[in-house]
């Protein structure tokens, strides 16, 4: 069973209590609760921003702004819902704001930034040489993902890297849950076609 980095980030730090308890404490002004929430969720926010932008500095800016916005809107956050989809929707919004400021169309592919994205990949195995083929496949997959339009890239990343459920993805993308599967399948097919084309080239 493969554990994704996004999932691993959430699984760590259970000592601080559940997200719901921390949200309650943070609303009551407890500083430690805010710090624990930030530590628990900021890496996932950063990773999503990095996967959408391909640039470390931009991703860091977006993740910081998203965390700040998350905390300023904590008062109206429904504590019964999961934090991650809410935070990811904020990240997505911040990414789109950044594109707009730079006059980039949201549908644009990452281009050179996609190559930069693969440079941030690290090999999780103790013996990278023994796992060379899998490592190469990972690099090829992320290069192909970077070539997908943003709307297709984001849905694959949300499902396959961050391990979000279909209902969480629907919340992040603000689409009906019934649309998630068809959109995801279309994106996966396009990704596979890119990989196939690259292989044949």
């Amino acid at each position, binding site marked *: 069973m493969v554990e994704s*980095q996004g999932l691993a980030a959430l699984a760590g730090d259970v000592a601080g209590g559940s997200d719901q308890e921390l949200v309650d404490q943070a609303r009551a002004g407890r500083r430690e609760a805010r710090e624990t929430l930030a530590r628990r969720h900021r890496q996932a926010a950063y990773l999503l921003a990095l996967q959408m932008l391909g640039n470390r500095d931009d991703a*860091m800016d977006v993740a910081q702004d998203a965390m700040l916005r998350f*905390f300023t809107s904590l008062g109206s956050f429904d504590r019964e819902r999961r934090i991650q989809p809410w935070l990811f929707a904020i990240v997505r919004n911040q990414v789109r704001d950044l594109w707009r400021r730079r006059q980039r169309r949201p549908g644009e592919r990452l281009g050179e930034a996609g190559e930069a994205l693969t440079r941030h*990949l690290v090999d999780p195995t103790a013996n990278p040489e023994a796992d060379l083929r899998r490592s190469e496949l990972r690099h090829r*997959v992320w290069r192909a993902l970077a070539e997908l339009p943003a709307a297709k890239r984001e849905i694959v990343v949300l499902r396959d890297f961050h391990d979000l459920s*279909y209902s969480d993805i629907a919340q992040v993308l603000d689409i009906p849950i019934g649309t998630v*599967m068809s959109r995801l399948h279309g994106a996966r097919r396009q990704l*596979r076609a890119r990989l196939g084309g690259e292989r044949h080239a």
Partner: protein
Amino acid sequence: MPEQCGRTFDEVLLSGYLDDALVQGDEQRVRVHLEDCATCRTLVEELAAVREATMSSTFDTPRDHEWPEMPRTGASRLAHGMGWPLVMAWVVLFGGYALWELWTEAENLLEQLILVGGVSGIGLLFLRVLIDRLDALKTDRYREVQK
């Protein structure tokens, strides 16, 4: 590379099958179809391999010290919220006073023109930033949340 299998089967279900997100009836339908369709079996295997590669990827992430501290308490948030309006008020008052002084001190038309040109340029840049911010605000799904 397998393409559409051409049978009466909704291929989209294959992604739901892969994600274990189907209701029992649909999952059964996919299982039965896969037993009989090599094209879709190959597609599922390829999609699963790509999914596994994505899922098992790891990226380097910023260290703890690279993250700035969050505004934490009510007092901190209040200070954060009041800081910028106060700075803006100071800039307007001090800038206005300085401009008035420069204008009245200007000895000839050239100095007045330089002053007007500089102020106009800075004003236009500021206006552009303001317009961009307002445009971004209009399309922000969370503008209601922040109030």
